[in-house]
């Protein structure tokens, strides 16, 4: 197990290198003069030239690449073109805010989907099941910016119960977490239901029932326990997907997270900041994937023995 963790960490470092190289190429593939972009459209040519020299943009590509990688390894991702703050200082707190939003939403999505999915499988093809299936279908088909705007209108503008942006109190969490969490719960519920229907049809369930085990124990212990393995995989895949959705949710609710920062930096063409955001987002995805992979092996030792 330790060997596996080490191998995966080595893979992460390698992936980080590939990613940085990719981002460096990206930086240079973008049409337009980066020095002109920093200086501004109306800046005199002399200023653009001095910026070009100060940033090393007149050096050969390979020299630029080695300096860039050297700096990044020391934790220096450069300065934001606009706020002139180090990228790392801006990105750090934003990443934490995204983690808070994604964490609570994930928790909500998991608990709602486990409960609804199990109930739906328990009452298969009855009104409750139909209702849950309809809920998940609507959830899957409605993009989060539609549900988000509807939420803002009803609870923020019309009823004035909840604030429509920011993250300073628990009230600010309600709408973003509900929007993102329930959208994800819709997809999860479908999967949990299918896995539970499959698990509840197995022979050991019949045996348990024959022994007179209470129905609740059968469903939530025997059924859910055995359905958990595929469910973990779906949850893991879903977590990555949700981090993508968080970028949209953050823009709707003015959540000061990494996703909104990334979108804003692209719109203002703040390339160093965009690079930093993409790097940290990508590393988060790889890390999440690694954790899910380890969790999966822990839950099913048969895979580890392969």
């Amino acid at each position: 197990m330790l060997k596996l963790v080490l191998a995966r960490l080595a893979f992460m470092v390698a992936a980080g290198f590939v990613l940085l190289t990719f981002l460096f190429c990206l930086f240079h593939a973008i049409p337009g003069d980066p020095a002109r972009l920093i200086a501004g459209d109306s800046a005199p040519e002399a200023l653009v030239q001095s910026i070009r020299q100060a940033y090393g943009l007149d050096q050969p590509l390979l020299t630029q690449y080695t300096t860039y990688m050297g700096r990044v390894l020391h934790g220096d991702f450069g300065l934001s073109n606009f706020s002139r703050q180090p990228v790392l200082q801006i990105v750090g707190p934003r990443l934490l805010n995204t983690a808070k939003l994604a964490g609570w939403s994930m928790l909500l999505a998991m608990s709602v989907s486990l409960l609804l999915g199990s109930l739906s499988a328990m009452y298969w093809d009855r009104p409750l099941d139909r209702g849950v299936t309809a809920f998940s279908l609507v959830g899957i088909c409605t993009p989060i910016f539609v549900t988000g705007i509807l939420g803002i209108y009803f609870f923020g503008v019309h009823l004035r119960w909840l604030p429509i942006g920011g993250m300073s109190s628990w009230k600010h969490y309600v709408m973003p977490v509900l929007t993102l969490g329930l959208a994800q719960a819709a997809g999860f519920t479908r999967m949990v239901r299918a896995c539970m229907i499959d698990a509840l049809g197995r022979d050991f369930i019949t045996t348990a029932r024959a022994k007179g085990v209470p129905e609740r124990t059968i469903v939530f212990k025997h059924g859910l326990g055995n359905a958990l393995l595929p469910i973990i995989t779906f949850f893991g895949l879903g977590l990555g997907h949700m981090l993508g959705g968080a970028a949209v949710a953050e823009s709707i609710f003015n959540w000061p997270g990494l996703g909104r920062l990334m979108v804003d930096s692209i719109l203002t063409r703040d390339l160093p900041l965009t690079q930093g955001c993409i790097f940290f987002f990508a590393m988060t995805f790889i890390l999440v994937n690694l954790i899910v992979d380890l969790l999966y092996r822990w839950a099913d030792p048969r895979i580890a023995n392969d």
Partner: protein
Amino acid sequence: MEILRRYACDRVGLFFGIILLGFYAVAITAQWITPVDPFETNLSEGLQPPSAAHWFGTDQFGRDTFSRVILATQVTAKITTVSLLFSLLIGVPIGMMVGYLGGIADAVVMRLTDMLLIFPTIMIAIIIVVVVGPSQNGVIIALGLSQLPNFIRIARSAALSVRRELYVEAAVAAGASWPDILLRHILHNISGPIIVKSTLALPGFVIGASSLSYLGLGVQPPTPEWGQMLHEAKDFLTNAPYLIVGPAIALSLFVLAANMAGDSLNESLDPKLKGRRIKRIVPRLTGRIATS
């Protein structure tokens, strides 16, 4: 044809299929059926609530929201169709080739798609927009490329399933070259399933296109797009909440119809998908319900 006949028997699927076709009919005829010019601004008639003249009201520039929703249908249909074709035309040849030939190329391409599939497609699309720039063509390239790994996988598994068939071996024995086998025998036999499977990807394209436009990274104003219209409407929620109604309904209904029609089409391609599951589960569950 057999697929279409089975599809026609599925009433729910047929219903949503007709809605989906309706959307495409609106998209094709959009120029002629908009009641008012969707770009015509009239500041004195800005932010008017829905009326007989303007069914969904007017936006801040006095443009008719209903006409804009209709034109946005065309924009969305164009973007999703072109990017879907883009993914198909690049992904299918690659997937088919590595699936049939196997070996190192197969291993490399599969590892690459594995790595790309870790990232949510919307993230990949956003990164591509950084390079190609936010525009309608940018969205098409971004969506097409970000969905590419899925299409490579679909084509690869389809090619894998037929490459040991007798007719392929017969073609090899007859001395056909591999491009010939791929084009004449394999592509011919997997094109049906691939087309059906690609309908399952359509909702993802629609949501992707409107999400990018919502974020301001896609279709740029004044061209209407549902996501971009919702983004503009968000600023007027207090005094003109009716502006969100049209684009929100159109977008959700389009995605729902594409989802349901795609599911049914997929089931009619492989009837076992539906029958097998229900047949296997029903006796067990009825037994269970009877005892509980």
